[in-house]
């Protein structure tokens, strides 16, 4: 009998092998493993895990069904709260959300909620189990801008309530960050993302790709000319940030967005696709978030020696624990308490990166201890490629072309948390466009809030 204090281990692709391919790292649970893990859930009356979930899935509820082997019923419970469970089971930071609140975690390991969610969602994808759609259409037209996690969730929720929803996507593929940002080895595109989107389509949601709102048409025109009664803006984060250090425009310096977009969306890692990618032989990724881990592990898979350069210590790494663990297993080298000061170039190409050692001082506004440079500790890392993964700043395309839509001092769209209500009537917003770069699940929570707000607004109309 397994140790009840510990999670049922999940099978993974061998670290050495997976470091050279783009196939999914984690295999997930099979039914036996899932049922065994489900037994560990003690079905708390006051389930703290639900409060830890941004979309408030009835976690003990679905786990009880898994325990009994009723996977289809488990899925139906889950689908009431999330449009993308197969995605969330893979990319949510469970350790700081549901699993972080799990009572089992006090003495041992929390219930492996993420892996159970993934198992149920994958089972539903494989067996073509559909979420319940609306019984009646109510005839109200709603436009959703962006087909990322916020937009898909909002569209799915509204369609279930009977709304006539059209999603406008700027890129040529649906999914937003799920397709351009998160790599195949963490979130398979055809097997998971496309299938989840198909489920949203089956709810009756219409999709139009290649429409850049703010350019091809505006929010005002959607309302005034195309007959949409409400609009949800889930347009994502936007412009990549750079450090502003010398040499940053040299050839071989990329934003993580560019590197990952070329590899994930344009599939540059696959020779049969036309988009090129200068993969690099020795790569330094600057930053410590999930995006930095994704970029570093992508570079590794493209054959490079891959380094993470992060100015704080391991404790402050904002990436999911699992991603850091996987990156290390695969051979990514971590340079912690290190900050770049200059990118060295020759003939316009990167030849190295001058870094300075850091130490931690007093906590700053974020509550994390502030990194301070150690004078005279500069040294050079020899690299031919530098990937800047420092976050993004909001894209002004929509806010600058929508009358009455206000932004805050960081240029993020102002919207309330409960309903996603903006300063413009009938216009709701959520996700990175409102909060700045955050997580898939927070965007989904904001998508749900927006759907609630729009439903309340239009049912009164």
């Amino acid at each position, binding site marked *: 009998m397994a140790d009840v204090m510990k999670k049922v281990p999940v099978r993974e692709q061998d670290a050495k092998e997976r470091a050279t391919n783009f196939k999914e790292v984690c295999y997930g649970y099979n039914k036996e493993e899932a049922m065994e893990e489900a037994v560990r859930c003690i079905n708390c009356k006051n389930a703290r895990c639900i409060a830890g979930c941004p979309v408030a899935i009835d976690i003990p509820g679905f786990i009880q069904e898994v325990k009994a082997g009723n996977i289809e019923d488990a899925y139906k419970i889950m689908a009431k709260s999330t449009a993308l469970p197969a995605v969330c089971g893979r990319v949510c930071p469970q350790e700081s959300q549901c699993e972080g609140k799990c009572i089992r975690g006090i003495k041992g390991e929390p219930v492996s909620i993420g892996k159970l969610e993934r198992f149920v969602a994958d089972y539903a994808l494989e067996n073509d189990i559909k979420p319940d759609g609306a019984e009646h259409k109510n005839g109200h037209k709603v436009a959703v801008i962006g087909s990322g996690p916020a937009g898909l969730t909002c569209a799915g929720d509204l369609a279930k309530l009977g709304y006539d929803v059209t999603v406008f996507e*700027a*890129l*040529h593929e649906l999914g937003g960050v799920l397709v*351009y940002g998160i790599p195949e080895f963490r979130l398979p595109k055809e097997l998971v993302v496309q299938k989840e989107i198909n489920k949203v389509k089956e709810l009756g949601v219409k999709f139009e*790709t*290649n*429409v*850049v709102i703010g*350019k*091809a*048409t505006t929010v005002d025109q959607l309302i005034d000319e195309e007959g949409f009664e409400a609009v949800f803006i889930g347009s994502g984060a*936007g*412009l*990549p940030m*750079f450090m502003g250090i010398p040499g*940053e*425009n040299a*050839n*071989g310096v*990329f*934003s993580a*967005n*560019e590197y990952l*977009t*070329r590899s994930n*969306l*344009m*599939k540059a890692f696959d*020779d*049969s*696709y*036309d*988009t*090129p*990618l*200068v993969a690099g032989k020795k790569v330094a990724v600057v930053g410590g978030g999930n995006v930095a881990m994704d970029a570093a592990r992508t570079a590794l898979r493209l054959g490079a020696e891959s380094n993470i350069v992060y100015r704080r210590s391991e404790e402050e790494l904002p990436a999911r624990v699992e991603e850091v663990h996987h990156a290390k297993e695969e051979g990514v080298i971590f340079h912690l308490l290190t900050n770049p000061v200059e990118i060295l170039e020759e*003939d*316009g190409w990167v030849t190295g990166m001058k870094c300075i050692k850091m130490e931690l001082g007093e906590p700053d506004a974020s509550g994390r201890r502030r990194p301070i440079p150690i004078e005279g500790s500069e040294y050079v890392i020899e690299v031919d490629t530098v990937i800047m993964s420092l976050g993004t700043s909001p*894209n*002004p*395309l929509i806010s600058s072309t929508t009358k009455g839509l206000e932004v805050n001092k960081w240029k993020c769209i102002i919207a309330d948390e409960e309903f996603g209500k903006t300063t413009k009537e009938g216009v709701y917003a959520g996700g990175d466009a409102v909060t700045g770069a955050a997580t898939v699940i927070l965007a989904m929570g904001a998508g749900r809030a927006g759907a609630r707000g729009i439903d309340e607004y239009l049912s009164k109309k």
Partner: protein
Amino acid sequence: MYKIVKAEKLAHQIFLMDVEAPRVARHCEPGQFIIVKLDEKGERIPLTICDYDREAGTITIVFQTVGASTEKMSWLKAGDSFRDFIGPLGCASEFVEEDIEMLKKKKMLFVAGGVGTAPVYPQVKWLHEHGIDVDVIVGAKTKDMLILTEQMEKVAGNLYICTDDGTYGHAGMVTTKIEQLYQEGSKYDVCVAIGPMIMMKFVCLLTKKLELPTIVSMNPVMVDGTGMCGACRLQVGDEIKFACVDGPEFDGHLVDFDQAMKRQTMYKTEEGRAMLKLQEGDTHHGGCGNCGGDN
């Protein structure tokens, strides 16, 4: 899918297509660009808009075959389709927002180089339709590479054509023509130069001396074209600008052309390799200097 309603070869390696894209045609303005993607596996290729027909819902694009993707694009015929066609992207030319009466008082000079004639055309046409005739210099390597000359004649004030080899019009570079016009006493308030980066660089070096404010349209490496990837970043004065959302038009006297040209070579080897693979197919055995003949 976006249907090609017209496809023709304008000159050696230069092609024109009219593409059905009603949303783009309804909203585009001179100076903006589109991104086209041939098929499932194709690249996203940014191209400046050459003309548009709001009623027919079509956009005219002109492109030169420079790599494997544009080569494949040139094989398409009327009736074929692009998988994706995204736009309008970037900002419209500044004059679109200016007061027409003020504009009429300005003397404008347009300088077009090679395939850059295509994006210059809708600007000159727009001004012509608003009652403003501007002088246009069009330059090409040789007579056979001149494009859109007839169309340009209809909308330009004075049209000066230059060929590097003297096979047509003024013999010499566009810069020598600008110098000549100034020597003859012409003066302009603003210059718009669009063409290869090297041409724009030299036009700007000259117009700086002539104290002639100059706008250029930049065409750097680009992926999404909506401000997401930062591949198209340029040094403009002491700022970093993204050509796709801040441009594509910039003050030419502030653009760091040398850096921009270096950045443009970033994927040259990759592109060359793809081109050789396309041309030689399975018979490709080295020569691209990159793959050792293995693939």
